[in-house]
Structure formats: C-alpha cells, structure tokens
C-alpha cells in the first residue's frame, strides 16, 4: 500500500510510539490490530493497568442516557485540560455479525475536540456482552497518554457486571421511574458500582429514585455516592466530573473483578482455539456433549 499507516506495513513498535506522541491515525490503526487480535498485551509490552481510576466503566440500562451523559462529561473534562478517550460498545447481530454503532452520534464533542478520542466497538458476540479485548484497548489508550478512558457498555445483561474486569471504577447510571424501591434492593451491579447517578433529574420522580437508591444502599454500609444530574440541561455535571477524577474504589469488588477477568481470559482462550469449529460441529452432531468436552479438556 502506497500510503498512510497500513496494519501490515507498519511495525507495531512504531505505531505505539507514534500513538503515544499524539498521532491519532496511528492510534486508531493500533486499536484495530488489538481489537482484531493481531496484537496482544505481550507483543505490545503493556503492563496490566494499575487500577488508579483512569479507566471508568459507565453502565446502566438502555435509554437511561449514558451516551448523552458521556458527551457532557467529555466537554467538562476537556475544558479542564484533560485528555479523554471513550470506548463505546454496541451489540453485534447474533445472526449476521453486523452492527450499527450509534453512540458516537450522540456525542457532539467526538468530532471536534482535540482532547477527545471516541472509538465505537462492536461486541462481536463475545460472551458476557463485552469484547474480550476491550480491556487491552482501554490500556492502550492509557498508555497513549489519555488521562481518563470512559468505557460505555451496551447496558444490558451480563455486561453490567463484567465491566469490572475492564474498568477500575464503575459508574452506574439510573433514571427516574425505573421501578419502585424493591428494584433498588436487587443484587447485581448496584453492589459493584463505585458511584451512582440518577440522570434526567429534570424529570419528575428523580428525587424519589435517588432517595430509594440511597436508602437501599445505606443498609449494607460503605454506600457509594448517589448524585442527581441532568445530561439535558447540564445540572450536576461539574460535580460528577470532579467526583470521577478522584473517585476512590469501594474495594469490595476486588474478588469479583478477578473472577470476571478470569472468565474473560477463559472465554478468549476458548474462542481462539484452532479446533473450535470442529468442536462445534461435533457437538451439533451429538458426538459428545458440552459438559463432557469441557471436563475432558480441563483434565488434559
């Protein structure tokens, strides 16, 4: 290829170096080769993230306003001189593998601000709803000099919990009228969140939602902060930005984090097996069942 950075033609060391010196094109090529599994943590010599709070997972149900909230946060961080990257995850079709990646559309800052880099990522039907290489992509962005990396999840199912394998802090986004106080008692990502925001605080029911969350969380002790914000009119965004810059980890999630990291690594190893297609056909034809295969493989 005569031009630009070709993934084949450019040695990865040079790409990483160029990405670290602010070359956005090199960075985007590098992220592709990580996403496609061409480069690994080993080949890039990138250490595991220190857990200092620079990678923040943003999760919450579809429609609570995660992308709009991220856009507001990007503006605020950028105004205070921070360089911020976003990995915005959207689902792939289980039938065709295709994806329509629409989070970027809601982030005005994505296309103008020099302090901001936004990358859309498809789940590619990875188990747990998080691409297996998302963690390394986030760490490449930290290595490339971004002060913060925001990872926006699909916002459904297991991805809400598995985000702890990637992010060292988790912000849960809620919205008014998503259920009564019993919803707030349910186990799951609520227990893992380092902070919670009730978005759409300009709507009726926001105070009630925040109160329900606080009272549910207070029972357990060491409750995470619960803030009210409005991505529509900007209320509470500055306070949230300040909170996220120095957000302490609640600590309780440490074993859960390692559990999810182990599962992610396990899934990756399984999906990268050379004989995966043969195993699937054998399962399909009833040669052996999945439990048999797993226990045989584990004992090998």
């Amino acid at each position, binding site marked *: *290829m005569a031009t630009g950075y*070709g993934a084949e033609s450019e040695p990865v060391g040079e790409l990483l170096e160029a990405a670290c010196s602010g070359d956005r*094109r090199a960075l*985007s090529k590098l992220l592709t080769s990580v996403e496609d599994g061409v480069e690994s943590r080993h080949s890039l010599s990138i250490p595991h993230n220190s857990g200092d709070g620079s990678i923040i997972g943003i999760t919450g149900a579809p429609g609570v306003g995660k992308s709009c909230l991220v856009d507001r946060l990007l503006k605020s961080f950028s105004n205070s001189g921070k360089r911020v990257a976003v990995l915005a995850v959207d689902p792939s079709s289980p039938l065709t593998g*295709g994806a329509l990646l*629409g989070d970027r559309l809601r982030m005005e800052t*994505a*296309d103008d601000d020099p302090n901001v880099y936004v990358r859309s990522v498809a789940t590619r039907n990875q188990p747990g709803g998080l691409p297996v290489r998302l963690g390394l992509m986030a760490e490449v962005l930290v290595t490339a000099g971004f002060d913060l990396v925001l990872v926006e999840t699909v916002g459904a199912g297991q991805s809400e919990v598995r985000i702890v394998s990637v992010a060292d802090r988790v912000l849960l986004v809620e919205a008014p009228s998503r259920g009564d106080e019993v919803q707030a008692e349910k186990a799951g990502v609520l227990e893992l969140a380092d902070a919670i925001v009730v978005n759409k605080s300009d709507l009726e029911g926001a105070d009630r939602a925040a109160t329900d969350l606080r009272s549910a969380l207070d029972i357990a002790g060491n409750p995470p902060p619960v803030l009210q914000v409005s991505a529509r009119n900007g209320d509470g965004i500055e306070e949230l930005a300040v909170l996220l810059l120095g957000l302490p980890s609640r600590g309780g999630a440490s074993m859960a984090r390692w559990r999810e990291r182990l599962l992610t690594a396990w899934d990756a190893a399984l999906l990268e097996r050379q004989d995966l297609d043969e195993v699937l056909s054998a399962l399909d034809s009833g040669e052996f069942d999945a439990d048999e295969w797993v226990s045989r493989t584990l004992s090998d």
Partner: protein
Amino acid sequence: MRIVIAKPGLDGHDRGAKVVARALRDAGHEVIYTGLRRTPEQIVRTALDEDADFLGISSLSGAHAFLFPRICELLCEQGGQDIIVFGGGIIPTDDRDDLHNVGIRAIFGPGTTMEEMRRFVEVAATRRTDGEPTGVGEGGDWVWGGE
C-alpha cells in the same frame, strides 16, 4: 468491514443514508452513522478515528460538487488515502466524472439495489486485499460500473 456513513452539509434528508447503513449492517459489516449536518472536517475525523475501511457520503441538496471533493482532499492530507470512498444521493450524471477523479470509486443514485451496494463493498474489499489501488488517494482509474 468497518464502514462510516456520513451526511455532509445542510441537507436534512437521511432516509437513504439510514437504509444503506441498515443494509450494510445486515450484510455483516460494522457501520457507524455520523448523523446529520456534519462538516467535511468532522466526517474525516470520524473516518480516521474509527479506522474505517469504507466511507459512504450522501447528499441530496446539490452541494456534492463542493463537499465530496473537500472530504477526499482532507482524507488524503490526514493519512486516510487507503479509505475507500463511495457516494450517493441526487448526483447528476454530468458531475460524476469529476467525483470519480477525486478518488470516489462509486456513485449510487436512486433505484440502486442493496444487493449492488453489498457487491460493491465485497469487490472493493477484495481489490484492496489484492493490493490494487482502491483507496481514495491511491490513484488508478477503477470505478464501480456494476456487474
């Protein structure tokens, strides 16, 4: 393939762009839609940051003669010569040669079938894998002429 579908300029008609985005998604591609009224600078940044293999630009307002070449020029200046560019919308036949000359490899007008768009992506991707000039800044005179 990663494909960015963009709407440059003030034209607010994006039904076509959305249908194309959806059809390419259903063909198994990862499609990023920019939304309406983007500047050439914003579109080029999206294509580069998202590491797009293809960039599709749509215009129905008559501003294609300025906007499309500007996008191609910026792509080449910023290291995106290898990105494959195609256009669509209301593009008079008389204007098409000029757009092909700045590196746009296909122009799809009203009546184009989704099957044809999918074939274009397939054929252009194969050309690129084979090392034949297909990107916006790679020269050569290949343009999509149907099959």
